[in-house]
């Protein structure tokens, strides 16, 4: 009844399930202000979409959610365009490298396990850090002590690098090398994982570049639009694994979910929100780890030459 045929993936999926998946991830991204790609891509894989299709299509979906997110931030003047462009410059290089890496690993038959392990590592580390941090914050509020304020930026070795640039909106005068390198790493991970990379670039901007928190989300979203757009086009051109019909269904679900999530998120406390997100992130990491550790039902797999996992 609600089955729809995906022309590139060449499988039939239930529209309602995929809309629900898009909406669920949209709710989370609306609640937590993250892109949600790191959840969408694994969830697509769990529901039977081939990994290569999931990664490319996930990236396409994030373009839409980051456009509407970035527009909201732009109206509040929360985007450092100059910093964003430097991050994009590094990110494009990283994205190219990532897509070629996945293509190479696909040919060798190791793309699936590689993607899973990178996911497990990043989701595991970030999930654990968030969990510990938010648990501490909750315990601190319980015991009545005021929450700690972060100390203002101190000078580190990063500030001694050449190629200095002035970033007015961030009130920073630093070398362009760190943002370029961060951009490249995020671009590489984003293209391998089919995510926007917000969960890496946001902590990097706060802790490494010491940007003011209010411009971090906006700048990250602005940067994500371009990186995911580049990744979408690269996957479409080089791997032919982008299914635009699936992407469209996910985009619609994501738009609806994003609105629900934004309203729900405002009613919850910050640390409760963060611990909830940490638990979800850890659950996805454990589920992915299970997939590569537990003896599979079938040791054999078949894929067209030069493709597959």
């Amino acid at each position, binding site marked *: 009844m609600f*089955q*729809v*045929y995906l*022309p*590139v993936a*060449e*499988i*039939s999926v239930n529209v309602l399930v995929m809309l629900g998946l898009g909406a669920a991830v949209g709710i989370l991204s609306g609640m937590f202000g993250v892109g949600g790609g790191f959840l969408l891509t694994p969830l697509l894989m769990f529901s039977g979409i081939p990994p290569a299709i999931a990664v490319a299509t996930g990236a*396409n*979906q994030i*373009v*839409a*959610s*980051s*456009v*509407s997110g970035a*527009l*909201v931030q732009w*109206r*509040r003047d929360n985007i450092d365009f100059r910093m964003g462009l430097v991050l994009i410059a590094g990110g494009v290089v990283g994205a190219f490298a990532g897509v070629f890496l996945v293509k190479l690993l696909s040919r060798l*038959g*190791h793309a*699936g*396990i590689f993607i899973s*392990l990178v996911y497990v590592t990043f989701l595991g580390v970030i999930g654990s850090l968030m969990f510990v941090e938010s648990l501490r914050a909750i315990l601190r509020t319980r015991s009545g002590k005021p929450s700690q304020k972060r100390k203002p930026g101190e000078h580190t070795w990063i500030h001694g690098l050449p190629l200095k640039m002035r970033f007015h909106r961030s009130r920073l005068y630093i070398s362009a090398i760190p943002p370029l390198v961060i951009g490249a790493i995020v671009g590489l991970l984003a293209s391998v994982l089919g995510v926007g990379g917000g969960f890496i670039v946001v902590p990097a901007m706060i802790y490494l570049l010491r940007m003011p928190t209010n411009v971090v989300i906006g700048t990250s979203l602005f940067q994500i*639009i371009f990186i995911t*757009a580049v990744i*979408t*086009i*690269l*996957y*479409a*051109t*080089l791997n*032919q694994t*982008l299914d*635009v*019909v699936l*992407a*469209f269904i996910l*985009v*619609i679900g994501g*738009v609806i979910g*994003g*609105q629900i999530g934004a309203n729900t998120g405002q009613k919850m406390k910050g640390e409760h929100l963060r611990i909830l997100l940490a638990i979800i992130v850890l659950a996805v990491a454990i589920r992915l780890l299970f997939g*590569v*550790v537990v*003896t*599979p039902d*079938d*040791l*054999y*797999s*078949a*894929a*067209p*030459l030069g493709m*597959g*996992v």
Partner: protein
Amino acid sequence: MQYGLALLLAASLPLSGVVALAAGAPPSEQIQSDISTREISIQSNFTGINIVLFGSVDFSRAPSLDESPHDVIMVIRGPNEPIVVRRKERVAGLWVNGPSRTFSSVPGFYAVLASRPFRAVAPEQTLKDLGIGFAYVDLGKSEPPESTANDAFRASLVRLRKSHDLFKESDDGVTFLGRSLFRGSVTLPVNVPIGRYTTQVFLFRDGKLLNQSQSSLQVQKAGFERVVYMLAFNHPFIYGLLAVLMAVTTGLLAWTIFRRD
């Protein structure tokens, strides 16, 4: 009893049917067959399709009732493609793809329908020569070469394809309606590859191949699905750009509709 005797006879004279045909001896019986659908279009509501192969045996001489019956085997093969089969191995606690084997032309779809169990219809050698059944389906060259006939990689490929409904075998898939009319039906599942399919219908009696008939059908995407597919594979850059444009437009629309500032 009659079948048993036929099998015994056929086994002692392997390939006698094929040889007789090749030698130009006038075949005693002719077979005619056709397919219910010559062109299959895949659209957004496609969930698989059932096709019917039917035909008749034209007699050059009237058979007496105590003569052994005709047997029909139908083989439907989808477009060929090289396939890599990999076996996972445990490396440092993780299951990683290890040894692999490439088969140069694996049919995207393969179905065999018969009026009786294959081995009762024709001797092993004939089945092997004609590529009938999972044991003998032609998968092209193997790289590295298969070590034994019962190679685990080959068996796994067949098993995987079977579990996706892409390889089918049916002992009683062909039914005779009277002495000369027969029909068989097969379902092409939702995941069938597009391209040209060939159907072969073999007529046997007493283990001998008497005649065969071939036809083909085309599976293709139609309408919107066709446009998307053609764009994705023939103009991938434009396709990628359009996908990004779609996402940007939707994101912009969502922001305009739901904006609160």
